[in-house]
């Protein structure tokens, strides 16, 4: 933040050679390595889609950026500052710029607090006055398309999509520069998912915020991202422009992923199924030739 020159050249967030390890519960056992040598960067107003299967480490990467996962090696830089081991106090300053939307809208809001109190929380931490905070909350509810009488209601009075809107409003409260979105639409119904994706796009258009968008669904990632990174077993195996990675992938895993997601038409799906079987057969033969056991 100190040097203007650096800010203009460097991307908003860079992650270099990141390693995350969780200590094993067993005595003297090897720690569990969740991320190996991860490199990504996100520019201003850009969306990086992060796709991979469960257990591939994509959520861990998001949590490491937020300071919720232990960084064992490598470096996370935000606006030129190293934040890999930020203290609680630095995090509090950082929370103005980096925010989060979690997957499960049912557990990410405290069931005992009113919506107004949930939204006031980040504002209060930054020392905003009550009256100003109230005004900001009204703006936020308007921005995410919720009625202003939502302030005095409890999370349980809302549907999943509405709760996710509250979570998005909380993330937007401090006008952050980067929002880590951890599977924000996975728990939502199809039509709700479409509306929430629209909301994400609209917010980016209006505020120029950057997203690190984690999802297991290639269709979602293709729809919302400028660039896409594919994670597999804790490593990034492919990274590039969304159009390229999601239509004409290079890595065998991404190719499999692309053909695995079914399309809503019986005949085209039959075609895709055949393509997938052909691809699996080719990859199996390649593996055999390379001497890799199936």
């Amino acid at each position, binding site marked *: 933040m100190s040097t203007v020159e650096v800010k203009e050249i460097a991307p908003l967030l860079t992650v270099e050679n990141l390693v995350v390890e969780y200590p094993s519960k067993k005595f003297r056992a090897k720690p569990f390595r969740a991320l190996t040598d991860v490199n990504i960067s996100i520019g201003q107003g850009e969306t990086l889609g992060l796709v991979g299967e469960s257990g591939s480490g994509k959520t861990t990467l998001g949590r490491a950026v937020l300071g919720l996962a232990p960084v064992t090696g490598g470096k996370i830089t935000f606006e030129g500052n190293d934040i890999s081991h930020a203290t609680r106090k630095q*995090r509090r300053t950082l929370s103005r710029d980096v925010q989060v939307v979690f997957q499960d809208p049912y557990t990410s809001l405290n069931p005992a607090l009113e919506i107004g109190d949930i939204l006031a929380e980040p504002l209060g931490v930054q020392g905003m006055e009550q009256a100003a905070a109230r005004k900001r909350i009204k703006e936020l509810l308007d921005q995410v398309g919720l009625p202003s009488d939502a302030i005095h209601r409890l999370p349980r009075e809302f549907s999943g999509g509405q709760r996710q809107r509250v979570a998005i409003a909380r993330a937007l409260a401090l006008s952050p520069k980067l929002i880590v979105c951890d599977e924000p639409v996975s728990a939502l119904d*199809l*039509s709700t998912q479409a509306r929430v994706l629209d909301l994400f796009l609209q917010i980016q258009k209006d505020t120029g915020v950057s997203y690190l968008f984690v999802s297991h669904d290639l269709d979602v990632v293709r729809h919302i991202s400028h660039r896409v990174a594919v994670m597999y077993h804790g490593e990034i195996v492919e990274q590039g422009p969304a159009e390229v990675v999601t239509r004409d992938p290079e890595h065998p895993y991404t190719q499999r*992923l692309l053909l695995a997601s079914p399309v*809503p038409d019986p005949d085209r*799906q039959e075609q895709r199924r055949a393509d997938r079987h052909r691809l699996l057969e080719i990859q199996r033969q390649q593996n055999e030739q390379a001497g890799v056991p199936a």
Partner: protein
Amino acid sequence: MSDSVETAAVAAPVPGAPFTGQTGTVVRSTVGQRLFKNPLGLVAMAILLAISLLAILAPVLAPFQENYSNIAKTLAAPDSVNILGTDSAGRDVWSRLLFGAQLTLLSALLCAGVAIAIGLPAGLIAGYYAGKFEAVSNWAVSILMSLPGLIVLLTIRAAFGPSVWMSMIAFGILISPSYFRLTRTAVQSVRNELYVDAARVSGLSDLSIIARHIFSVVRAPIIIQTAAIAGVAIAIQSGLEFLGLGDPTKATWGVMLSEGFKNVYLNPTLLFWPAFAMALTIGGLVLLGNAIRDALEDGEKIKHRKKAALSTTAAPAAARTVPAAGGKSVAAVDAGTEHHLLKVANLGVGYPQADGSVKKVVDDVSFHVDRGEILGIVGESGSGKSQTAFSILGLLPDNARIVAGSVQFDGNYTVAPGEERVDQARLSKLRGKRISYIPQEPMSNLDPAFTIGHQLVTPMVRVLGISKEEARKRALKLLADVGIVNPELTFGAYPHEVSGGMAQRVLIAGAISCEPDLVIADEPTTALDVTVQADVLDLLRELQQRLNIGVVLVTHNFGVVADLCDRVAVMQNGRLVEEGSVRDILRNPTEQYTRTLLASMLEGKTPMSMLVSSQKEPVA
């Protein structure tokens, strides 16, 4: 709950119109209301309030000082001056009872206060931070709990003299582990909740996170625990004093009890009054604790007067299907429908609510499935698709009622018209043998305590009546059939040793193990990774074709529908909006709702374009 909001926002049902999808709302009462409705809770609160008032007003109400003695009038019977008589030293029993209440209640509060002051913060810290503090405090707690309480109290009495306060502070410390454990467990259960993570990202300090987000979880259990502990404290303290270890210069119920016991042959009522006061107070505390616990637990008793309420909604539908509603004997199905493997006609499912109304979740749903056919039921969450599937299986919750319609399987009713509940005797003959089930969450549907082999073999031995050895052979073959590379290894494995996709294959193997005619698959691939989903879909298709079974596939994913199904039924708000062949529905849907759903699919859309915002729609 949220359903009422959702329904109002999305569908805006026509008010007053009968049979328009889901009707009624979930009615809940607050904790306070439930507490006041509970007669035991009300009585307990009244007793405790009265005793507290008497104790507070003791200086005003008591005619004598606690130790004022009239030597001329010992062990007197009740009269107008001493309304409960006097004790062996000529002291007024009523006055001593009032002052005793003051001291006894205060000392019980002191004990609970000390225990909370130590146990609660320690439990919060240990639960939230874990690590070293938790390890150390666990040791301390174990030591405290292994100390023999009564001996410690006697030692303290010997060291510090007969003080009520000292003994209660000591007892408070001794009993603090119960608060510690309670708090720690409650905190551990919410420590990793996402809203705590969100608060951390917002930059909240640990102290405010604990105060705002974590303390609220332990509040209720602490109140319940305190009611119990206060009762125990009174009992322990009085016990010590009864043994003659109390302070004879102070009037407490325990001292009075001790005094009364000495004169039990001369005047037994001296023993009765303090014992009565103690029993009343301790009983009140225990009952209050129970009442609060009952009020907090969500299990509300629905009054069984639903007959009248239900018959009004059930009658028209039942009358429509079969004019002469079947009595005890199962009616024969309508002629011309026997060839359908499964036929659901005008099915309605509802839940009676606390206020006597019925919340309908499925309304007027009809469809059929033939052998060798896959029917997809598509809908969003809360559309009633799973409830429909469960009523076919007879696995609805106990409080659910079939409010209308019928279900028939292979020419026989499983739910005959006019029946309110699924007949378990009729269905248990079919379930597992002819109708089987593939669940959504593979992991939670396998028992972690048994090996996969055991869980496959047991049902086969029971249902097919074959020997264990034969069942084992079949299980191994089934595992190979569902594409598991090393069946022997998986057969001996425990559920936690296999992946989610593998577990789903095991469950599919289990579902087809008894050669069913109909398989109900409830979102069978939703919990799986996309690549694994594709494999499981291939497996389902291959098995279905080979075994020629009928399948009801419940899903929200049109891709899965396109991949597997022959016909599709679309559900919204408990109603079937559209049904037809997969090509018709996916390509030329006639209903607006189906079109909206299909328009929400991302496949084939221009990236970064708005999906629905062009149409002004109500907020999801």
